[in-house]
Every structure is written in structure tokens, then in C-alpha cells.
């Protein structure tokens, strides 16, 4: 990217709220039902049918607002956004225009290195999702499935605070992590539970005004957000450098071709004629209601992160990784509660356990090893019963069985060699067997040390403590 140019990005994320029923009807929002089996009188907009707001959707929106320290509107209004489209059964979408439920707030976006960036949240509002049009199933027709119509959405709009594609992707990821943490969204991107629109423009470095922007619609993965934006930023820079002008338009990201394409407007008009939905009265949120929601708020990632750093003296970057996922964070805490050392617990969870889960495409909610088992394993490392190599073996065994850590150690004879004489005998033998390497070490090639340690470990079948072996070797070779 040419360094003369600076991208300016803001995103809008549509989050499907994890309610049981739809936002304005009592139909189940369960995914994957047969077409139109989740579309009742209200969802198909039968004449005479009326919307009634789902309390849980309101609660979830408020939770999000509290989590980003936003103003929660004491009184907010639902509006109609009018346009014709076959998957929009009423001919309008119920949304919030003038007065959203959640006002201005702040989102802390954590970078990989543990540093934090504050991104402004402009607003978040409640609205209903549309149904789906199926274009490829019938030769002459488009099929309409209204199962998704009326699914509650929270549309979160950020300020144009991001200055790179990576930052925008990190922001999307942070919103994903926060709404999952709060339990207000299942976070399942593959099923469309979160969709991201990105507004992007570029300007000359040092400019304070914004360039003309484009909007990229409906991006459904973190990786694609980054790729789509990188493409679009390059495209805009190319246009501007060639003396052209960016056209304000809606674009679509084609993942197969890795490019953004101009989208002919799906909708008939840009005059949505917003006005307050006369079927719905103003929504007033009492302080009692807000207090009730506040009392059900979990400890937020930011708070937990700070507590992890002070209580367990973890590094910022470690604490950030532990608090990215609420299930991981609580797994970590219960492992510690069962007596494990916090540093070892963090290393194991973010290292071996994460890798094993990754291989099996599982997450921390369905770890086959309980936090108590993991704590037992770590305790055996702490008391030197297990070397880290042995501990990995034990982890593999408890991954597939319910046996206790101590039973496995006993049965498989995986106890670390704690007999100093036995270790000394092995070290002596290896020194004798490798005169050349010993010579090299003595003449200063200390790197060869690792080779000798490895030989001892091998001879001990991994049961020796590598640190002890290394100390012993140094002492015996007088270096």
C-alpha cells in the first residue's frame, strides 16, 4: 500500500440475538427448519396480524449497551423502513431510526500483543431480520422462505475509527467475542449469526476530512473482512492515484475471486420513508428494569483481564488471550480453583489444550478433560512427579479416558525419575558414549549441550527432568 494514503473504516455488525422466539412473534428461531415452518401469522404478515416485542431481545440489547458503557435510551421508538422485496413480507422492516435503544459507547479492541485500542460505538439498535430468497432451486421462480423473517437483530454501528483492514477485522472479532461472552449471540458465523458491513474510504495522510466512501455488504468471516477491505482500499487508492473519483456505492465481496464488486441496489429505492411504527408504542425502560439487567451482567472481559493481571500476575498478552472467550476464562478460573498454578494453567490451556481442541475442532465448552483433571495434571508437574514431556503423554491419556491423573501415572509408570543416582548413572553413560561431542563442548560449542540432554532424556524414556539433566551435565563437564 502506498504510504501516502490512509484508509478510514467504520463497520456495522448485524448480530442475531440468541432468543428463543422472534423479536415480534412467538415463533421459534431454531435454525434449519423446513421452509416456512417457522413463519406464523405475524412473520408472513397476514392481514390483521400485529407485532409484540420480545422482552429478551430488549434485555440483550441493554446488556450490550452496559458492556460498552453506553447510554441506554430511557425511551426509544421503533420505526418502519419501507421498501418492497419478496423476503420482506410486510413491505417494511421494523427497525429503529431516530432513537436507538443503545447510544454512544466505547469498545476496547485488544491486539494480539495485548495492547488495547478504543473504538467508538455510534449506536446499536434493535430490528427484525428478513427472510431468504432461494434463486437456484426452481427454474422459473424464486422461492421465498420466511423462517428467518423476524429473527431479532442488534445492529451495532461503529465510528469511522479504524485505519486498516486488520484493525477492522480485529474490531469485528472483538464484537464477536463480546456478544458471545455476554451470551446474547451464538456467534456462529457459518449460520449467519453475525454479518458485517464495512464503510471504507481513503484519504491523503494528514487530511482531516473524509474521502468518498463505499459500503461492502454482508461479509461473514473475520478473514474475509480483512481481505475484502484490503482489496477495496487498494482499489480506491488506484482510482485516486489515476486521478479518478471513488463512486459512492454498495459493493459485495466475492470470496472466490477475492475482490469487491459493485452491487446493483437490491432494493427499489433509497427513500425508505422511515416513520414511527404505529402498531408499537414508545418503549420506556425503567431504572428497575435496567437494574435487573445490570444484576445479571457477567464480569466483563476487560474487568476479568485486569483482575487476572493483578491476582495471578499474568502478562497482559496472556491475560488478553485468556479473556477472549468466556468459556476459556471460566475454565482457567476453575482450574486454578482446583489448586493449579496460574502460570502453568495458562500455559497449558493456551498451548497443549488449545492445540488439541483445535485438532478436533472443538471449543472450550466441550473439552473432554475437566478443569479438575487438568488441575491434577498441573499439580503433578508442580511437585515434579511429571516432566513436561511426560505431562503431555498423560494429557493425551486423560483426553480419551475418565481415569484420574494419578491412576494413569501409576499404571503406565510415567513417574519422573526422582532418583538422583539413577539419573547420574545415565548421564555418566552418555558422557562416555559421546567423547566427540564432549570434546566440542569443552572447546566452547555449548550448543551441543542440547544434544547430550536429548540423549539422556531418550535413554530415560522421557522420565528424567530435563533441567536436572542439564545441571548435572554442566557440573560433570565442569562448565
Amino acid at each position, binding site marked *: 500500500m502506498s504510504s501516502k494514503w490512509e484508509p478510514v473504516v467504520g463497520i456495522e455488525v448485524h448480530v442475531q440475538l440468541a432468543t428463543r*422466539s422472534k423479536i415480534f412473534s412467538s415463533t*421459534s428461531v431454531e435454525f434449519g427448519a423446513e421452509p416456512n415452518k417457522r413463519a406464523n401469522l405475524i412473520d408472513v404478515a397476514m392481514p390483521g396480524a400485529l407485532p409484540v*416485542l420480545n422482552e429478551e431481545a430488549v434485555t440483550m440489547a441493554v446488556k450490550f449497551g452496559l458492556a460498552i458503557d453506553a447510554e441506554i435510551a430511557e425511551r426509544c421508538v421503533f420505526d418502519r423502513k419501507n421498501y418492497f422485496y*419478496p423476503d420482506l413480507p410486510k413491505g417494511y422492516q421494523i427497525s429503529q431510526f431516530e432513537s436507538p435503544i443503545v447510544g454512544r459507547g466505547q469498545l476496547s479492541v485488544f491486539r494480539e500483543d495485548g495492547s488495547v485500542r478504543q473504538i467508538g460505538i455510534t449506536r446499536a439498535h434493535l430490528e427484525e431480520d428478513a427472510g431468504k430468497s432461494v434463486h437456484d432451486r426452481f427454474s422459473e*421462480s*424464486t422461492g421465498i422462505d420466511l423462517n428467518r423473517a423476524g429473527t431479532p437483530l442488534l445492529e451495532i454501528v461503529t465510528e469511522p475509527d479504524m485505519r486498516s483492514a486488520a484493525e477492522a477485522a480485529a474490531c469485528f472479532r472483538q464484537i464477536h467475542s463480546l456478544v458471545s461472552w455476554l451470551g446474547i449471540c451464538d456467534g456462529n458465523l457459518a449460520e449467519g449469526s453475525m454479518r458485517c458491513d464495512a464503510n471504507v474510504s481513503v484519504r491523503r495522510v494528514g487530511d482531516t476530512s473524509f474521502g468518498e466512501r463505499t459500503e461492502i455488504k454482508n461479509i461473514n468471516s473475520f478473514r474475509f473482512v480483512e481481505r475484502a477491505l484490503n482489496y477495496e482500499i487498494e482499489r480506491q487508492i488506484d482510482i485516486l492515484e489515476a486521478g479518478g473519483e471513488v463512486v459512492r456505492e454498495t459493493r459485495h465481496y466475492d470470496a472466490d475471486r477475492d475482490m469487491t464488486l459493485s452491487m446493483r441496489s437490491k432494493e427499489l429505492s433509497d427513500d425508505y420513508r422511515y416513520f414511527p411504527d404505529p402498531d*408499537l408504542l414508545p418503549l420506556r425502560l425503567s431504572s428497575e428494569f435496567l437494574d435487573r439487567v445490570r444484576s445479571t451482567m457477567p464480569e466483563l472481559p476487560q474487568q476479568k483481564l485486569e483482575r487476572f493481571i493483578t491476582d495471578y500476575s499474568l502478562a497482559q498478552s496472556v491475560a488478553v488471550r485468556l479473556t477472549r472467550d468466556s468459556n476459556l476464562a471460566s475454565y482457567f478460573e476453575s482450574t486454578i480453583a482446583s489448586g493449579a498454578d496460574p502460570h502453568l494453567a495458562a500455559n497449558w490451556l493456551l498451548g497443549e489444550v488449545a492445540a488439541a481442541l483445535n485438532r478436533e475442532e472443538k471449543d472450550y465448552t466441550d473439552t473432554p478433560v475437566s478443569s479438575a483433571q487438568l488441575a491434577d495434571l498441573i499439580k503433578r508437574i508442580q511437585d515434579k512427579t511429571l516432566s513436561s514431556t511426560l505431562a503431555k503423554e498423560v494429557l493425551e491419556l486423560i483426553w480419551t479416558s475418565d481415569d484420574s491423573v494419578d491412576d494413569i501415572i501409576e499404571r503406565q509408570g510415567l513417574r519422573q525419575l526422582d532418583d538422583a543416582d539413577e539419573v547420574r548413572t545415565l548421564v555418566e553413560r552418555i558422557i562416555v558414549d559421546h567423547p566427540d561431542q564432549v570434546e566440542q563442548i569443552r572447546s566452547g560449542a555449548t550448543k551441543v549441550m542440547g544434544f547430550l540432554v536429548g540423549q539422556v532424556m531418550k535413554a530415560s524414556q522421557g522420565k528424567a527432568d530435563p533441567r536436572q539433566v542439564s545441571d548435572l551435565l554442566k557440573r560433570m563437564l565442569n562448565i
Partner: protein
Amino acid sequence: MDDETIERLLTLSQLSLDIEDREKIRRDLDAIIGFIEIMDQVNTEEVEPLAHAVDLDQPLRKDRAVIDFDRDVFQSIAPKTADGFYLVPKVLDQN
């Protein structure tokens, strides 16, 4: 009311009018707009708009899911359906 405005209103409303009706509607709309301009005579400075006359708050529904309808009955009154879908003339995928 000029042609362009009428055309725009018709597009937004998904309606069309033959020449005779269009002229009639144009005359009517002109008359209606002339008539509603009587509102200008009322000073509404510092008056809050009122959406509903009775001061009620929006009630909330408990988040309970129920299935209380039959898709086949719904679709028996639909102009065109197949395999549980409502059918409309083919929409060309824009992308």
C-alpha cells in the same frame, strides 16, 4: 404535482395508473395538498409530535416459543407455492 413526482410516488408505492386515472389523481392530489396546507396556519413551535393519543407504554412479551399454525393452511391461500416455498417470478441474482 408534476409528472416526475407522480412517477416517483407510483414507483415507491408499486402502483400504476392509466392516463385517465392519472389525470384524475393529479387533480385530486393537488386539491388534497392545497387542503392540507391549512395546517400551516397553526403555530406548532415547541409542540412535540404525538404518535398515539392515549399515553400507554409498550408492553413486552416473555420469550416463549410456540408453534401455533399450520404451514399448509397458510399456503393454501397463497397464489403460488412449491415444496413449502412461496414462489415469485425469478429474481436474477444480482451478484
